[in-house]
């Protein structure tokens, strides 16, 4: 019975990964070839994840003994106002950026796909350029631009007669998320335009021609031909945006450090503050619990992608 079960499981695993059943020797060869990577994964990813999960139930300040905390760290989250704010801001930024960076690049890519010759090439290059700059450099650059007193944005607004639009971009809790969101869109937009553009280039043009012959206008072609055909690409873009949003850290760390008054604190920056930038000793237990929450959100995003893929038969 067990043997049958093993064979079934083995067959199911092979068919899941390779799509065809393999012989015993082939399976062993496959295992041998993947073993170095598996060992690497276990040592550098698996064990740290397990250790983080475990630390989430413990308290440790790096120099004292590790003590068992049970669910204490998770209970602390219930009362922790900074965590509540960070959780909300993480979801808000993730949702807003996913929406924005899924729809706007698609429209721009469709425009580029209409032609434009050399101007299209220049436009795509210019849009893509910010994506090759690291988040840290992006953050440092925009921090200078958004300086409320000496920054070029407020200076520009004053010079063109719009001083009423000047803001304390990174120092006003009501404005800071807009500023960070705009910078994130500026940085990522080009990348997703290129991904969509590549997808559009691979579409069969005859479908659009057929739709045009049937009397579909440009809007109808976009929503009833282009978007359905691009569904795998859109799904990938949504997943990437969800994961990037949940993990958002570097640009906020550089631009505001989570401030002012925790207004731009996300789970990543809060976890870093608790675990590594605490003014006292680090709280690795609570930091690990926060990391676990981030990991759970990422897993949910991946499940969402898998669910959508299956639902769409992709």
């Amino acid at each position: 019975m067990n043997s049958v079960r093993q064979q079934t499981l083995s067959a199911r695993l092979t068919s899941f990964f390779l799509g065809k059943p393999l012989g015993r020797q082939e399976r062993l060869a496959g295992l041998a070839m993947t073993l170095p990577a598996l060992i690497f994964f276990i040592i550098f990813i698996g064990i740290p994840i397990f250790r983080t999960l475990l630390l989430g139930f413990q308290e440790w300040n790096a120099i004292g003994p590790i003590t068992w905390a049970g669910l204490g760290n998770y209970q602390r989250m219930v009362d922790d106002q900074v965590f509540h704010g960070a959780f909300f801001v993480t979801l808000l930024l993730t949702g807003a950026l996913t929406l924005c960076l899924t729809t706007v690049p698609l429209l721009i890519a469709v425009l580029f796909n209409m032609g434009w010759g050399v101007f299209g090439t220049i436009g795509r290059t210019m849009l893509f350029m910010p994506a090759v700059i690291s988040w840290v450099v992006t953050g440092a650059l925009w921090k200078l631009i958004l300086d409320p007193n000496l920054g070029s944005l407020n200076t520009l607004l004053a010079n063109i007669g719009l001083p009423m639009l000047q803001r304390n971009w990174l120092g006003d809790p009501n404005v800071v998320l807009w500023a960070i969101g705009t910078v994130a869109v500026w940085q990522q937009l080009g990348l997703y335009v290129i991904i969509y553009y590549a997808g559009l280039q691979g579409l069969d043009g005859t479908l659009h021609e057929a739709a045009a012959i049937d009397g579909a206008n440009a809007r109808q072609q976009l929503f009833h031909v282009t978007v359905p055909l691009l569904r795998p690409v859109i799904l990938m873009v949504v997943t990437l945006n969800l994961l990037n949003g949940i993990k958002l850290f570097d640009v906020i760390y550089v631009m505001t450090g989570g401030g002012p008054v925790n207004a731009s604190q996300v789970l990543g920056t809060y976890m870093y503050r608790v675990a590594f930038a605490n003014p006292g000793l680090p709280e690795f237990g609570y930091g690990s619990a926060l990391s676990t929450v981030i990991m759970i959100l990422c897993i949910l995003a991946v499940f969402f992608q898998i669910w959508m893929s299956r639902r769409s038969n992709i």
Partner: protein
Amino acid sequence: MNQQDERNNLSRRDFLRVAGLSAGAAVLASCVAPAAPAAPGAAPSAGGQPTTVRFWSWYTDQQDQFPKVIADFEALNPNIKVDLQLKSDVEGAYLPALLAAAAGEDLPEIYAPHVHSIEFGRQGLAADLLKDLGADFMADFFPSANSMFLLNGAQYAVGWMAQTMGFFYDPDMFAAAGVDGEPELWDDMTVASNQIKQKIEGNLGVMQAADNGYSVNDLWFPMITGFSGDPDTVRQLDDHEAKWTDQPVVDALTLYRKTLDEGLWQENQTGIDQIACLNALYAGKGAAFYSGSWNPGRIYKDAPPDLVKRLKVMKTPAVTAGARHWTGNSAGAAFSVANRSPNKDAALTFMQYLYSPDVYAWVMSDSVSLPATKSAAEQVTDPIIKTMASWLPDGCRHWLTGPAGQIVADTIMEFTAGNITDPQVAAETMEAGAAKLNYGS
């Protein structure tokens, strides 16, 4: 398949054997403890290997001076090698590395402890330098430069660069706005700042870096001492021997609120960090900047030469007429010695050399830094550093090392941003957070 092919091709079975053996060997190799290297700080081996003293800090102020000091020391002590590691990114690189070393019980022999001196001392990781280097070694330090590293009579670090806080200012701008002399009280400073903003169009007046609570603490903690008259008050708050709702704290918050409400500081202060304040000062957009004695070296490198020539520094104002001008001074820069290192003796030898009067005075003077010892302070020639050194007897704590650091920093930011406006409420918020924390033994 011919014979040649059979010889050159690996059969599947052979491949599996080789792969299995390789993987097994890799696992075994990773499990076997590495051959023990010569203990890094052990006495010189028979082969003549010198003892290594690992020396970690983030004080790039002395990045040009440390190599020369180390070379001179090594020439005098050929059996000791000093391995310097400077990491300028304190939060991103230095502290994680230091804590990892502490967690692994492998602290570098000499290290800048940041805010961890007392905790490391409690855990037996930091040496009691009073015991190991003697009272004579300690006698030359300003008490305020060492007080935050002292616990139950044990000295777990000694000050490297002292800090005093004050206003770096452009005297021409003050004169142009009709401000005579240096403001004595916080109220006078508020009047001066508003006068500058009115008379010089677009000027930000007097600035503070208020993008984070720790910088704001630099400003309002000396106000607490100003009202208590006791430089130990902030230490008592840090250890929760005093309450954050005590009168000096409420008075200090009330005074700070007044400076906020009456327009002492620049617009948009919560979005402006130290670098932005310095840039505004260099660009002639700000008249004065409240900050610490770690700035002159940086200002001399970055500011326009004509501003460098006329730049001055003035005392932190007093809270009431005739009161002392308490100034933040905690020797944020300090060095500790790893207590359990086998190379501790070599580390202590290097510490004695590093702090020997001539060497230390030269390093401080050459790097335009504020010394933590009286003898070195007497040898300072830079006019701004000399002025700030003269305030060291009025030094008081301007940061916390205990667990309440974050709650106090967060609350003072809420207060600065105007989310909390009542000083009593701010004090109660701090106390409510601080009372829940564990202060150790």
